[in-house]
């Protein structure tokens, strides 16, 4: 299959391309840009006039809920949601049921995901057995089964000695470890940011230093072990400052923030909107602004959806009892564009946070459009606004604080490996 995407604005952040030109796809790969390669005859031509032609998005955190939690979502629903959102590669955290701590589970997930021919799925293996934070999982075996990195998802490792040994062991194997910094004792029972809103609503709270204390411990262990660590879902201004300093020091750390946290704050909890029950909690406006700034200056390397489909019943509960999380695969691009517009960030710089940079963190060949690269492409209309509605979401999870919002960016075509996997109705 040969495809010509013509008349579009090609934006390829990694290769510093932002110009009007055609893109040519052949045999699953990018064949060239600008003038047609010699002898190229398109089987299909896509007219991208007025549209942006960008690398497919790379999402560092998307829960697909398989195995074990299929009542919340399935591979079919979520991988289709991914391509509907222009996401062509995603990392899925190991907090499935059972957790991804055995090679058989990882192989099955990879095989089942690959058979869909939709987005590429990169499983993160459990760092500890059953994610219990006590015993190491078989990292070498899991790596060979296809895990690209290791994580505890949102499960704690309360014992710092275990974390130290886990990082040493990971360093031995040369694999990276992804950690969400949060002190489990300070976060215990908490469901909201420890601030004026939680005080007013009477919600058990998580102080911001639950993040920075854990971050301090992780950074000290990185300094001691040299392990490559990716810090997940930063939520506080103080945390961003610590990561900034750690990078200046030369520690091998990268970090991401969730797309919701870059736009929302504790104020959005309003009258107990359970859609705003997220992990980590939405924090103060000052924290949110620091995340936006950190993302702009590169302290925060990547923006991710932290896609967490939750069934409606689990959200129809009193705030603190409701299941945390928000659906996000289809909102990652719009929320990236919204951030870029509000902060005056160039489109290519904004897209870098959801394409080439997360691809580099994952260590995968994706997120760019140089000749020879896999033809994972997102073609979108940057000017169209879409009003978020439950019916419009392909994900089985309809849980989003953005219901009713008109957000910029409408995906028109998504290509994975050179095949059109999603095409919006005209």
């Amino acid at each position, binding site marked *: 299959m040969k495809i010509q995407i013509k008349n579009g604005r090609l934006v390829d952040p990694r290769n510093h391309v932002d110009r009007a030109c055609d893109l040519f796809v052949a045999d699953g790969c990018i064949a060239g840009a600008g003038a047609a390669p010699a002898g190229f005859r398109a089987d299909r031509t896509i007219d991208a006039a007025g549209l942006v032609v960008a690398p497919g998005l790379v999402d560092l955190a998307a829960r697909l809920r398989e195995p074990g939690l299929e009542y919340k979502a399935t591979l079919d629903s979520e991988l289709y949601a991914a391509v509907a959102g222009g996401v062509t590669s995603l990392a899925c955290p190991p907090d499935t049921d059972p957790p991804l701590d055995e090679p058989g589970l990882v192989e099955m997930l990879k095989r089942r995901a690959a058979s869909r021919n939709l987005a590429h799925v990169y499983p993160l293996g459990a760092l500890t057995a059953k994610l219990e934070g006590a015993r190491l999982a078989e990292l070498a075996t899991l790596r060979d089964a296809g895990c690209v990195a290791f994580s505890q998802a949102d499960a704690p490792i309360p014992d710092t000695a275990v974390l130290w040994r886990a990082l040493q062991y990971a360093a031995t194997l040369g694999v990276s470890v992804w950690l969400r910094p949060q002190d489990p004792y300070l976060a215990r029972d908490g469901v909201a940011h420890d601030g004026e809103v939680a005080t*007013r609503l009477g919600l058990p709270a998580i102080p911001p230093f639950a993040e920075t204390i854990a971050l301090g411990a992780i950074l000290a262990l990185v300094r001691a072990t040299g392990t490559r660590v990716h810090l997940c879902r930063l939520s506080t201004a103080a945390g961003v400052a610590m990561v900034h300093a750690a990078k200046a020091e030369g520690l091998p750390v990268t970090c991401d923030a969730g797309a919701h946290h870059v736009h929302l704050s504790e104020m959005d909890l309003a009258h107990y909107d359970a859609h705003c029950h997220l992990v980590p909690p939405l924090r103060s406006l000052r924290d949110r602004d620091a995340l936006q700034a950190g993302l702009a200056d590169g302290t925060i390397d990547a923006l991710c959806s932290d896609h967490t489909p939750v069934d409606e019943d689990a959200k129809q509960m009193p*705030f603190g009892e409701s299941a945390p999380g928000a659906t996000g695969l289809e909102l990652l691009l719009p929320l990236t564009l919204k951030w870029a517009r509000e902060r005056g960030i160039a489109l290519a710089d904004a897209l870098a946070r959801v394409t080439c940079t997360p691809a580099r963190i994952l260590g995968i060949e994706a997120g760019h459009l140089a000749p020879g690269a896999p033809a994972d492409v997102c073609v979108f209309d940057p000017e169209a606004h879409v009003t978020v509605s439950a019916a419009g979401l392909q994900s089985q999870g309809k849980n989003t604080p953005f219901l009713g919002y008109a957000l910029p960016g409408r995906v028109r075509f998504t290509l994975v490996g050179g095949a059109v996997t999603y095409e919006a109705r005209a």
Partner: protein
Amino acid sequence: MRNPQLNEKGELQHLLAIEGLPREIIVRILDTAASFVGVTEREVKKVPLLRGKSVFNLFFEPSTRTRTTFEIAAKRLSADVINLNIATSSQTKGETLLDTIDNLAAMHADMFVVRHGTSGAAHLIARHVAPHHHVINAGDGRHAHPTQGLLDAYTIRHYKRDFARLAVAVVGDILHSRVARSLIHALTTLGSPDVRVIGPQTLLPTGVESLGVRVFHDMLRGLRDVDVIVMLRLQNERMKGPLLPSAQEFFKCYGLTAEKLAAAKPDAIVMHPGPMNRGVEIDSTVADGRQAVILPQVTFGIAVRMAVMSILGGGAT
């Protein structure tokens, strides 16, 4: 976003919290309650305002006192009252909160009086029910206990008349107290210029000043020249652990004794939402002393709950 307690005309649809209630509605509830205080002292203690209406007391958390006062209030308004102690019933069988509500709504409930251990439960129910149902929050987690806040305000008005001149101190476990939050909002809405909270840092929520109060850790300084002292109940499980070393030490620092009471104005009143822990937050000589108005609070509480129900039921004049 519209205040979830008010309908499109700005009338009271549910009573979920004092916060966000317009001052006029609070005053109207207190004035209506005043007219019911007489009823509760009559030979025949009933008025027909809610005749034919069904009030469901839904208590997801154990309570005897609050449930009883709601029951009495509803009966004095001639409503039919159904008590459901759900802590021991359907929730343990796996039914969701809103399923329970739907079932009771199908039994033609007019009013739900809800107590729940999780903050925001009453808001969730209020959002869910059809417009002809009314929800009264009888306590949700740490958040709000609006009828208690209103009866406290009623008691203060009864003894002190003018909120604009009052200094009020709320003492003890503010962090976990829905009573404190509701009273603070009532006082600031009604115009009290000087609301103080007194307690150790471990029992004060972060940013409590944002509620419009001054913070004191030293009880004698905090009580200086106040007109009203509200003592809060300290739950047993919080007396020993990371929040406090012991009940004895709490009493030493924050228990209301005659000596500490002397720092307040000579005519200061002492309130307590009950049930009291004598010797933990309050000394018996004070609890039984001439300045205590703890039992009148209970009596006024029935009139205040009658007022709220009658206004929601549309029968109040």
